């Protein structure tokens, strides 16, 4: 008789056999158990997928006649996640070793529990990186000899079952290759579970046996293993298998519901009222204009720069313009500068050298520069009363116009401090009359967060009214 008459022949890639595993390795049993589980559940073979990484156990995907991907080292779970997202009807399983899933791809294993997709992870734990000659890995027992720890492993191994339960996998079980019937049961339950499933399968490795002078790990598993119906905390916390190995299902929970944390407020959608401002574009006559807005981070300097450039674009779409922002790593409290250039010609250099219009929300930038205020001799300065030291603004020729206004105070008393930049914009709009009022309002509406349009527009109007006095 030929191998093609084998009862598993439908699911085996006969042309790739005999397989590469060592004599006495029991990884092939896991493959047989997987075939039995699929046959028991009666899944369509076209709907089953096996993804694997690199390692001895990852060859299982190669020997199964199922669609599959042999992914890069440690990236079996992200690849499986991609398969699942592309076609949610597929039954996706991941076959990998302990070095692949827990060592190199450890973070993906944690993230899978968090994401909660229906992927079955079968981790074949043989206590080290055996394909390359047995280097020590994350699950190598304390004191075990490997190539890289010839005097005994000094590191405490991680506990895969405890990690899986902490990560949020909804099905967690442990089995060994010496108990294939139990393994079939675990695999069937794992595939039935609707969330991420994790099954740890202990495998006897010949290299581990030889280096540590163990006669037979398989006999050790059969002797120490104890199949249990209910699991206690001691069974989860088993990190050395000197006394007994608890086999069984540690957790079989339904798929986790997604709760919204009370820390996160529900996003406030628009109140339903639609704001709209009509504006008329016209030729502005600006040839070259440099505007600088400076202040402290948190006052809305960058936002003010965006409002300015949007307003200028509303006013005259033919203008060329740039916006450059300079700020430190801190979100609030550091110096912050927004440079806006408006020009009728192409702009070669995006930074402001000598500003024609300087908007000072605070004097922090000027003081950091050494107290010197740079301004064009025909320029305009608008300064916030409460934040700027006016001794800096004394020594100017008379052609420089200096306006002082309490933008922060108006905003604090009538609205909130965050709209101080719009109060200043209203004042600038009235005093300079470079850009039309409605163009400004449309620009503010464009960048205002939903629900705050009314406050921002009212702040602009307050600044505009203050400019009339």
């Amino acid at each position, binding site marked *: *008789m*030929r*191998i093609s*008459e*084998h*009862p*598993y022949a439908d699911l*085996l890639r006969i042309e790739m*056999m*005999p*397989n590469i*595993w*060592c*004599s*006495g*390795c*029991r*990884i*092939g*049993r896991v*493959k*047989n*158990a997987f075939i*039995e589980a699929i046959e028991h559940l009666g899944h369509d073979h076209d709907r089953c997928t096996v993804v694997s990484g690199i390692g001895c156990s990852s060859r299982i995907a190669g020997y199964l006649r199922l669609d599959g991907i042999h992914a890069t080292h440690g990236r079996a779970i992200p690849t499986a996640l991609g398969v699942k997202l592309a076609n949610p009807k597929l039954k996706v399983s991941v076959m990998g070793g302990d070095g692949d899933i827990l060592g190199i791809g450890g973070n993906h294993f944690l993230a899978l529990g968090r994401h909660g997709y229906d992927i079955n992870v079968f981790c074949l734990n043989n206590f080290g990186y055996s394909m390359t000659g047995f280097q020590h890995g994350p699950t190598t027992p304390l004191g075990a000899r490997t190539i890289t720890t010839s005097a005994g492993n000094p590191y405490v191994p991680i506990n895969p079952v405890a990690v899986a339960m902490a990560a949020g996998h909804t099905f967690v079980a442990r089995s060994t290759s010496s108990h*294939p*019937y139990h393994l079939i049961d675990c695999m069937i339950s794992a595939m039935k579970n609707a969330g991420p499933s994790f099954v740890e399968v202990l495998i006897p490795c*010949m290299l581990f046996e030889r280096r540590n002078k163990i006669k037979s790990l398989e006999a050790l598993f059969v002797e120490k293993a104890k199949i249990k119906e209910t699991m206690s905390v001691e069974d989860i916390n088993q990190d050395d298998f000197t006394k007994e190995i608890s086999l069984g299902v540690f957790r079989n929970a339904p798929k986790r519901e997604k709760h919204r944390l009370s820390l996160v407020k529900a996003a406030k959608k628009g109140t339903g009222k639609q704001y709209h401002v009509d504006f008329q574009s016209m030729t502005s006559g600006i040839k070259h204009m440099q505007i600088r807005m400076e202040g402290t981070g948190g006052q809305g300097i960058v936002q003010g720069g965006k409002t300015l450039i949007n307003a200028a674009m509303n006013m005259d779409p033919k203008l060329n313009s740039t916006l450059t922002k300079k700020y430190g790593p801190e979100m609030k409290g550091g110096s912050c500068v927004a440079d806006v250039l408006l020009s009728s010609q192409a702009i070669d250099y995006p930074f402001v050298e000598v500003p024609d219009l300087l908007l000072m929300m605070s004097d922090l930038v000027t003081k950091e520069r050494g107290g010197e205020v740079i301004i064009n001799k025909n320029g305009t300065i608008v300064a916030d009363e409460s934040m700027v030291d006016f001794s800096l603004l004394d020594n100017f020729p008379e052609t420089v116009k200096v306006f002082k206004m309490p933008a922060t105070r108006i905003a604090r008393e009538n609205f909130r401090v965050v709209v101080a930049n719009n109060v200043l914009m209203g004042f600038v709009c009235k005093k300079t009359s470079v850009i039309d009022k409605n163009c400004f309002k449309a620009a503010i509406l464009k960048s205002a967060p939903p629900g705050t349009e009314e406050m921002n527009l009212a702040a602009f109007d307050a600044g505009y009214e203050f400019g009339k006095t």
Partner: protein
Amino acid sequence: MSQEVSPIRYWNIEQCTIPVGRVTIIAGFCKGGEDCDDCIRLCPEKVLERSTVSNERGYLPPVVVAEGKCTVCGRCQLYCSENAIFVHKVGERAVHAHEIALTAK
């Protein structure tokens, strides 16, 4: 303490049949020897035994020594990592009372 329990009390032994299987061994796939003797060790009916003739890769595959005793439990087929052994059901036979008695050796 040998206690004779007659199975006739529980079911009609005359009509009781068990399946008969045929064991197929693909000698070229087998990696048996000192490291692996699962099929020989785990067979409940002791159908298999170690061969003395090695295959082309130097391993010693099992041979069938008790033809017709296989009951198609499928244990060797599930336990074999290399898929080198499998069983097919070929027929059924009636069992005798001494075969199925609990104290039967």
